[in-house]
């Protein structure tokens, strides 16, 4: 069994959207879940969050940033190519209830993971405020899609080339003084998720972050993705990937994701997903 790539679309420099035939995953997928993908016969297993799925048509979409060897090889593939392995959907789905007003915060390619959560939360009747940030204008992704589901969209760029000049955390800090925010979901690089958790901590706004540790099997077997949450060891693949941002030990997550940096230099294992 292999998994055909049906279409690809460049979203930003180094960032590509893949539509992949994976009927089982498409049928069972819910927002927040991921798949494990192998790109080559001798390739590593990497987790990629599903950004969209169509159960009837049998496809899923993956938004991938080329940051290491495996994602770079994947970036070179196009419609008609096949992925040897796509397995999932794995991990717990995003908690979706009627919370009221939810701020969905995406940093860089993390926006690809935040987007399906925004869709699901809006469908449940929440008023969604999307804050999407990037280093610079070209790296802002899914802005149009977010506008379809969010009542308000705030774009930030680090260099001020688009939207508000600054970080998503600055925008969020202002937002929570301007209006009542009942819940926050943040997906992006570790410093950004840590920053979001610190912004919301004083008001104790429930804040969910989606973690990106290194994984091998993705089904609870290896324990490589273990994270410390509220002083307890949890496995991101089966207990997460979403956790209470106020309880996560980001220092340990950051350290563990550096385990293979030496290998990364010669193209080896990359931390999971689009968070880089």
């Amino acid at each position, binding site marked *: *069994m292999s998994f055909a790539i049906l279409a690809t679309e460049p979203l930003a420099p180094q960032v590509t959207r893949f539509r992949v035939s994976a009927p*089982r*995953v498409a049928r*069972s997928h819910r927002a927040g879940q991921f798949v494990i993908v*192998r790109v*080559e016969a*001798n*390739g*590593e*297993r990497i987790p990629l969050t599903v950004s969209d799925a169509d159960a009837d048509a049998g496809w899923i979409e993956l938004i991938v940033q080329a940051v290491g*060897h*495996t994602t770079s090889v994947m970036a070179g593939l196009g419609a008609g190519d096949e992925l*040897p*392995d*796509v*397995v*999932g*959907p*794995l991990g717990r789905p995003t908690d979706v209830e009627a919370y009221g007003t939810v701020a969905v915060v995406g940093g860089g390619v993390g926006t690809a993971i935040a987007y399906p959560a925004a869709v699901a939360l809006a469908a449940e009747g929440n008023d969604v405020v999307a804050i999407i940030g990037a280093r610079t204008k070209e790296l802002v992704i899914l802005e149009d899609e977010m506008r379809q589901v969010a009542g308000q969209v705030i774009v930030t760029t680090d260099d001020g080339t688009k939207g508000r000049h600054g970080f998503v955390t600055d925008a969020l800090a202002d937002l929570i003084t301007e209006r009542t925010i009942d819940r926050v979901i943040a997906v992006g690089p570790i410093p950004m998720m840590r920053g979001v958790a610190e912004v919301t901590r004083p008001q104790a706004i429930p804040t969910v972050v989606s973690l990106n540790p290194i994984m*091998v*099997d993705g*089904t*609870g*077997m*290896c*324990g*490589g993705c*273990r994270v*410390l949450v509220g002083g307890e*060891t949890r*496995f991101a693949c*089966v207990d997460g990937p979403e956790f209470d941002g106020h309880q996560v030990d980001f220092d*340990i997550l950051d*350290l*563990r994701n*550096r*385990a*293979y940096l*030496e*290998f990364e230099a010669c*193209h*080896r*294992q990359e931390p999971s997903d689009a968070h880089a």
Partner: protein
Amino acid sequence: MPTRKERLAMSRTAMPTRPADERRNDFEEVALGFDAGAVVTEASRCLLCRRPPCVDECPVGVQIVDLIEHVAEGRFAEAAEIVAADNSLPSICGRVCPQERQCEGACVMGRKRDPIAIGAIERFVADYIPPAAPAAETTGHKVAIVGSGPAGLACAGDLARAGHDVTVFEALHELGGVLVYGIPEFRLPKSVVADEIGRLEAQGVAFETDVVIGASDSLDDLLVTHDAVFIGVGAGLPRFLNVPGEHLIGVFSANEFLTRLNLMKAYEPDSETPIIDIGGLPVAVFGGGNTAMDAARSAVRLGAGSVTVFYRRSDEELPARREEIEHAKEEGVVFELLTSPLELRGNDEGKLTSVVLQRMELGEPDESGRRSPVPLEGDTFETDVSLAIVAIGNAPNPLLTNASPDLEVGRRGTLVVDDGGATNKTGVYAGGDIVTGGATVILAMGAGRRAAAAINEYLVGA
């Protein structure tokens, strides 16, 4: 044929193994197996007991005496059929069963002399001639097997032989479960596992990889398309020590360490999956079971400067197969018995640098019947370690049971089943580590076979 007296005078034929100095540098198989001469000689030692205790101790009930009698007469093809009648994975069992606690442990010859080398004989026969797949008349019943490890494969083999239409679903990208991700090449070559799976395919068993039941499809989805389901998903959730420092870089579960090596072939230059470079560095393994031995011996092969197994009880309680312990020692693995890790320490880059250990002594027997280790107050020491492997067992993987809340789950997260492996849900059976917690390949196979018999009865009546 030798007389009884002559048999008693013969000594056990040693399994030929590659020299430790050679094998510690590669991942090729250590034990080479008997040749035709050696296997006949060894088989001719057997007293051919009329009430053989070895058969009683075999979890799958191989007719050992019948087997050995045929081997002693050089009738290997018939011997292979005898094994295949009760054991759908004999090449694997001959290599990984703890024979000293099962058939060979019960061997009458072993009371005063060395027991017959039953495991080595079984291995020879299984490797010598692949058993022909007996054609079965199809029943039209469809059975789904969840997990392609030893329990699932054994169950699939028996059900296919009974004529059922069997599909095995595997979560990983390769078939074999713990036989491929857990047990290293040097102890169980992947080609042996592939051959056994090939025989099942020849019997009509279908296999699908990359399917996680409980995620890709639910158990109820399977019950729509199949008449019965067998769950053999194993105990795949690694236990950790719960000591400070366990999140340091360089601390692995044995599952992760072995999966990177065995499944992902991290030791091969063209594999894209990395393993931390331990060339010349000290490695610690915590635990004393087969998995700990596999991890320690794998670390030797990666060029570690030293490999030490830290185990909290004494040599006598080491749960690993004796042969694995001896092989590990021959390959230079050091055993620090009666020690237990207190803390893992690292540098400011978050990398493991040392471990602090507590010396223990043996106290009163615990609920397992083994004398429980008790800390010797104040007797601690610290030793340099660059890579630590935690091999203290696995808990049942909750993925499927969480997704199927109507399945009855026991106190430790294991599935509750009756003697035939039936769960509380009609048509759903289970066996192996998901029922027992972490145990052995052969016990899982035995459970798979019992469940196959129960499923057959459920589908077609006794």
